C-alpha cells in the first residue's frame, strides 16, 4: 500500500520523483512518502491520494482475477521439477529477494530475528551494547 501511495504522490506532484544515480546531498535525511502515508492514515484517512492508492492497489500489485483465471487454466497440468540452477524466468524474482521492503506485522518478526542473533551470540543481556 505504501508503495502504491508513493506512486500516487509522485504522479500528483506532491513529491518529486527520485532519479536513480542522483545522490542525496550530505547527511540530509530522506524525506519519505511512508511518513506522509502514516500521518494521512491517522489524520485524513479519506484523503484523495489514499483513495487513489487503495484503488490502484486493488488491481495494481496483483491482479487477482487474472491470477485466478491462470490457475483455472493450468489446473492439473502443473509440472514440478527441481532444477540444479536458477531457471532464466526465475531470475527477476531471485533478484528481488531481500530487496522488497516489508511492511506491517512482519516488520517486527524480522527485527526480532535479527535481535535473537545478538542475544544468542552475547549470551547475556540484549540491552547491553557490546
Amino acid at each position, binding site marked *: 500500500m505504501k508503495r502504491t501511495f508513493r506512486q500516487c504522490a509522485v504522479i500528483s506532484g*506532491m*513529491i*518529486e520523483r527520485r532519479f536513480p544515480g542522483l545522490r542525496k546531498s550530505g*547527511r540530509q*535525511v*530522506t*524525506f*519519505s512518502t511512508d*511518513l*506522509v502515508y*502514516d*500521518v*494521512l492514515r*491517522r*489524520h*485524513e484517512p479519506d*484523503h484523495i491520494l489514499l483513495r487513489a492508492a487503495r484503488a490502484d492497489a486493488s488491481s495494481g500489485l496483483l491482479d487477482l482475477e487474472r491470477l485466478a483465471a491462470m490457475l483455472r487454466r493450468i489446473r492439473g497440468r502443473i509440472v514440478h521439477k527441481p532444477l540444479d540452477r536458477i531457471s532464466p524466468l526465475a531470475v527477476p524474482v*531471485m533478484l528481488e*529477494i*531481500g*530487496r*522488497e*521492503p*516489508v511492511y506491517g*506485522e*512482519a*516488520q*517486527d*518478526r*524480522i*527485527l*526480532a*530475528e*535479527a*535481535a*535473537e*542473533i*545478538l*542475544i544468542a*551470540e552475547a549470551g547475556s543481556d*540484549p*540491552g*547491553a*551494547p*557490546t
Partner: protein
Amino acid sequence: MTQEPLHERTTAPSARAAAACVGVVVAGAPLILDFSGTLFLESWSMLIVADLHLEKGSAYARRGMFLPPWDTAATLERLANVVNRWRPKTVVALGDSFHDPLAGDRMALADRDRLRSLQSGRAWIWVAGNHDPAPPAAIEGDRTDEIAIGGLRLRHQPRAGACPGEIAGHLHPAARIIAMGGSVRRKCFVSDGERCVMPAFGAYAGGLNLRDAAFDEIFDRAKTAHVLGREGIYAVHERFCAPE
C-alpha cells in the same frame, strides 16, 4: 540460496513478547530506551525527545511542496502518549524541535494548546538545534545549548571524536535490516556504550542510514542499533544492518 534459512525458525522470536523499552548503560549511566524513540533517565524523571521538527509540513508548503499539514498534530499526539506513560518531571527537547524560526507562528491554535497542556505541571527545556537556535518567542519553556547531568552531556549535534556520555540527536539514525527475503527500514537509537544518538521523533523527520559515513566520525567502536519496531524495541548489531 545458500543464506541461512532464518524464516524456518518461526517459533522462538514470536514466542518472545517484544519489550516496549530496554535499559542500557552509556558511559556508566543507566538509560531507558523507549520504543517510541524517547529516552528516559529514571533518577531524574527526565524524558528526552529529539528532532521533533514541528511544522515541517507547513515549511515545505511555503516552498511549494504541498505536504499534508497534520505532522505537528501527529507528532504532539505521539509525544502526549509517551509523556502520559512515563509522567516525567522534566522533558528535554534535544534540538530541531521547530523546523524553522517561523514555525511557532504557523502552529495551529489547537496544537499550541496541546503543547501547553503537555508542558503544564513539569519543567520543559528546549535545547538549541541548528533548525531552531532559539525556540519561537510565544512558546513556553526554558532554553539552553546543552545540559550536563549525572555524567551525561545532552546536546543537539554530536561532536566529532571521543565524547563519552554524550546524548545527541541531529543525525536521525535509521537501520535497514534484511531477513526472511525482505527488508525493513526503521528509525533507531545508535550506541557504542560510550555515547548515544537518538532517533528523530518528528512525524515528517526522515532517517539517515547508520552505515552512513556521518556515523563513522563519532563512533569508533562497534555500534548497536536499538531499532524501533511497531510493538517494541530490538537490539541489532550493526553487522546485521545493511547500507542503503
